[in-house]
């Protein structure tokens, strides 16, 4: 009897064994569509649990299985193994076809984030239509980042967790070829020397964001 009480008290103050924590995370991740943050796991699990540790075990357990434990930014989710996609034809959701402009804009945001509209235009050499950005925002693949500390304090764009989840990336650092691009200097934002034409400069939206007077004052 006294042992029972002792056991109970123990369970109140001590975290469950790691194998049990693994089960718990398994249950939570299986049940949820959206990736779950470690912090939320911690909040939902008994006091003293260490989800980060348990996740390592769980991830290993599912290696080579039909579903995998994947990391998405600072969150975790269970997703089916990509090689079994062929079984899932019925489940495929027809995604809206993205225009070439939208795809390029998305890639530029992913590789150059945080990036302003003006910088995207400088890279593509054309103005970015509002619709393109809106479409990416609506898909929740991009969102607004911090304002840039440059004249006019323009807004920036960054990619979202949904973007990472969609493309099966653990973080934006895992973008294909990122390292090579960086070492080749292709992710640098080199200002054009002197008299270069400012490509894609005729954009109205950008002008809204930067007061004209300031532009003139600071840009040359």
């Amino acid at each position, binding site marked *: 009897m006294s042992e029972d009480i002792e056991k109970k008290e123990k369970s109140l103050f001590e975290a469950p064994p790691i194998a049990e924590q693994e089960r718990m995370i398994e249950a939570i991740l*299986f049940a949820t569509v959206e990736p779950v943050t470690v912090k939320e796991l911690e909040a939902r699990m008994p006091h003293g649990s260490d989800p980060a540790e348990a996740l390592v075990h769980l991830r290993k357990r599912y290696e080579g299985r039909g579903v995998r434990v994947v990391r998405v930014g600072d969150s975790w989710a269970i*997703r089916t193994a990509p090689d079994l996609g062929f079984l899932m034809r019925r489940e495929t959701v027809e995604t809206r076809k993205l225009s070439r402009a939208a795809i390029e804009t998305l890639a530029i945001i992913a590789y150059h984030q945080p990036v302003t509209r003006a910088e995207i235009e400088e890279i*593509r*050499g054309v103005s970015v239509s509002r619709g393109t950005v809106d479409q990416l925002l609506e898909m929740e693949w991009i969102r607004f980042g911090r304002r840039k500390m440059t004249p006019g304090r323009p807004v920036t764009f960054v990619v979202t967790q949904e973007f990472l989840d969609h*493309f*099966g990336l653990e973080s934006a650092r895992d973008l*294909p070829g990122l390292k090579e691009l960086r070492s080749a200097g*292709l992710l640098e934002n080199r200002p054009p*020397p002197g008299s270069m034409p400012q490509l894609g400069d005729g954009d109205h939206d950008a002008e809204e964001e930067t007061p004209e007077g300031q532009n003139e004052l600071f840009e040359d």
Partner: protein
Amino acid sequence: MTDETFDEMGRVESVANRMAAESLIVDVDGFEGPLDLLLMLSRTQKVDLRKISVLELARQYLTFVEKAKALRIELAADYLVMAAWLAFLKSRLLLPPDPSEEGPSGEELAAHLAFQLERLQAMRESAARLMARDRLGRDFFARGIPEDVTRVKRVTYTATLLDLMQGYARIRTKDEFRPYVMDRDALFTLEQALERMRGLIGFAGTWTDISTYLPEGFTTDPARRRSATASTFAASLELVKEGKAEIRQSEVFAPIELRRKD
């Protein structure tokens, strides 16, 4: 897609080249701006973008624009701006540098253009690689039957040390507060003033300063005087409104005078 077809044509000699150039012109709507067009043209050089001859590229672009003009194809302003700039760049690259001239050299400008082309090309390739990845909802999938998560709301209460101390201070100093009651002693109300004025106005046949209407005991102490003056003035206006009196002030800050109206 278009890139490849053009690549193949680029290998063929001048006739094919011209045809290609013409097909480019016909397809001008398909280009996403002058940089895109330059990138396309640069492929005909069949070299690494890093070794591209910007001078040659400038020639190709200018030829393209000339042809478009000859065919009376309207080009967007962007293309013409680029053409003007490339013509300028061409002259800079061909002429010996003028030491007195300021600004970046032709080589610097050419290098930046080459950089821009390389960067755009790199982004195109990256975009293609990105889109070719295994994708959620196409190659791998999320949970089909998400389980409901019941949301339980729990309320916790909190307070800061400051709240606590202010709370205590509030109690301990309560005795020092006076309950909020109007101090009638120092007040001369509008009702009182009106009553007094109604009685007196009958005697005011000539213009009289309203300050003379202030009641006994309200003329020396500033607070009482303020109150009585305000009420007397308001009461005077009330009498004017009722048509029993007239009021005037000769200039700003001059005494306000009142007279009975018959």
